[in-house]
């Protein structure tokens, strides 16, 4: 085999390699590599710690099965922290499929930690973000009147009859909003909730959205950020709880190394073939 062919590896081999480097560290959790804590993640942790008594947290969850691998560990880590701190939280699910997925996550953790629906947490039920302008209208109306905006929870119970929501009406009653999303929804939260009412906002985007998040972090428009799966893994470290994100972080390591190795191989092959052409 000529060395220049290293830029022409069969794609099926690449796919197989990727499957192996992702699956092996997740199935056999043998790697124990260090993770360095970063200020963006501790910012979220500290914001949860600082939520005053009597205020609730809001989890805006605009994710679905497509980004479940990143957004679910983020959501679950934050939920667990809120439960530990006895901070009640309300979920705003924006995706049809995600509504059930987020509810199931909260339900599972609540059962494990002996928390009760309606007293420690609630879900406002599916909010159809697909309708143009709906998200912006909710983001504007919610800080003024939560009961008027959502009216009922997931099970059609009026908010006024839910113990957790008694006395909780406006932005003044929100101690933190966590936006878990693969999209750019955080801008609207900053504009309609963070800046006008000074409600702390934490951002939990997928990996591809992270670069944009540093703007808001630098401008202190958000208090912290969980950058993708690694953010969730770091949060699990802070909670001293080895969950899916910490296992998957190793898979991320191996897959990143594979991509880098493949790009280097591709370029080596490219330079060798170019040199050969120049000699001819």
């Amino acid at each position: 085999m000529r060395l220049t062919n290293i830029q022409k590896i069969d794609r099926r081999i690449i796919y197989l390699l990727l499957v192996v480097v992702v699956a092996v560290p997740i199935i056999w959790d043998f790697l124990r590599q260090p993770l360095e804590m970063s200020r963006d993640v501790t910012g979220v942790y500290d914001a949860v710690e600082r939520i005053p008594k009597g205020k609730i947290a809001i989890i805006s969850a605009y994710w679905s099965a497509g980004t479940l691998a990143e957004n679910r560990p983020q959501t679950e880590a934050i939920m667990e922290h809120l439960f530990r701190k006895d901070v009640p939280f309300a979920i705003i699910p924006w995706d049809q499929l995600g509504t059930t997925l987020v509810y199931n996550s909260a339900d599972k953790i609540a059962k494990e930690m002996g928390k009760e629906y309606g007293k420690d947490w609630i879900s406002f039920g599916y909010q159809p973000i697909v309708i143009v302008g709906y998200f912006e209208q909710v983001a504007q109306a919610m800080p003024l009147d939560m009961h008027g905006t959502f009216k009922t929870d997931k099970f059609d119970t009026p908010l006024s009859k839910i113990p957790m929501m008694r006395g909780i009406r406006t932005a003044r009653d929100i101690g933190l909003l966590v936006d878990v999303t693969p999209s750019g929804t955080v801008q609207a939260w900053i504009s309609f909730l963070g800046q006008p009412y000074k409600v702390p906002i934490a951002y939990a985007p997928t990996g591809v959205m992270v670069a944009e998040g540093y703007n808001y972090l630098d401008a202190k428009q958000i208090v912290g950020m969980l950058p993708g799966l690694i953010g969730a893994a770091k949060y699990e470290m802070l909670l001293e709880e080895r969950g899916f994100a910490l296992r998957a972080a190793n898979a991320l390591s191996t897959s990143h190394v594979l991509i880098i190795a493949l790009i280097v191989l591709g370029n080596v092959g490219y330079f060798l073939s170019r040199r050969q052409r120049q000699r001819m």
Partner: protein
Amino acid sequence: MIGLTQNLAFLPFIPQQGVSLAIYIFGAMAIGVIFLFMLTKVPVRYRKPIIVGVTFLMGWFYFLEFVIPGNSESASVRGRLKAAEQRLRVASHILNEAVVRNGSGQPAAVVQNSHKSVARAKEPLALALEDLKAAQSSIDGMRPEVERRFERETARLDASVVRNRLTEKMVERDEETGKVLNVHTRALKKEIGDFEAASSRVGTAISAIGEAQSVFSGAPGEGLEKAAGAVSGAAEMAVDARVALSENFLTPYKEPIANVVLVLGAFAVGLGVYSLLSIHGKGVLNRRPGWINGLAFYIAFVSMTAFGLLQKYASADAPLGTLSQSFYGILFSGVLASLQATMFSVIAFYIVSAAYRAFRIKSGEAAIMMVAAFLVMLSLVPFGVWLTSWLPREGWLAVFRLENIGSWILNVPNTAAQRGMAFGIGVGMLAMALRIWLSLERGSFFDKQA
């Protein structure tokens, strides 16, 4: 369309449940379809002026609602609150100057001669207190009139309920008071709520000033940061109270108009569903290439809709309810969630393959991009941290640790570039919005219509 009719003032009662609600929904849908049909019959030359006119009017509504000051009754109160807020900010600034803060912004000590600062802060505080008390008195004076109007309107509606022999199912009542609600009473109720909120905020601000003043009578310098915090909080409360009273005559119509926008958005969803059904339906009927996919779409659409509705409305104890719940679970979690996750996972394979085949260093810029990408990719994962973990955490060598390099790239060059792009996009969007609003835009839609 339901949202549209809900906002019509001449339709005071919206059925809440039962057959009357079903009739109302289907009636509204029928009106909606007729409305859409009529729109399709509008001559082509009139379509553009209609779109432009509606866009222009909507834009003007929001613009005017934003710029027109609140009603004249509350104008003097807002003026008082604005003056109080400014005086409180001055006092807060003077008191904060007397508190030395550490690096993280926490109060560390009180500067010497703090009594001078206290003396300077006392005057604006006293004036602010005067303003707030006057504002509260005015707010409490205005509220009974609105309450009387609310009572009158709800009494009129009650009489109307009896006169028209309307059942409870057709009437919406306020959860707390049991009063009948329609567009007018809802707006009046909100106004009363705003007065309550404003009065309560002003009351909190007055208490906060009292708290600050009690600190001044203690030992010099003691509790100064607490006093500064209380005064700052009082200023925020004054702002909140002012915001609660800032409604003008257009504000009550914001919600109905927002509902209209939502209804129009919902039409787009319905149109999408109709389009899918139409395209795949024609494909299946005419046995076009790939018709089997169209059939799969129809089976998925019908089964998901049917089982979704049945699992919600069929009795959970009945065999049909149990069956539909099981099937819905299989379709939802077993098929839909798995398919969606699979679709996104496949992207990873394409990204790796594409990066390997296409990412070639053919220029200096490509080389810089590749180096930056490698550094950021490695800095984010545990392997990268491990690679340079032998370097010290402190001192000048620490900057060469991969996580620090990655963090610098993301925080400095990336942020600068992102902001540049954000400004560009923002200006572009503003220009585009203005072009559409002022009907200067010549897009493909209008060109086709012309």
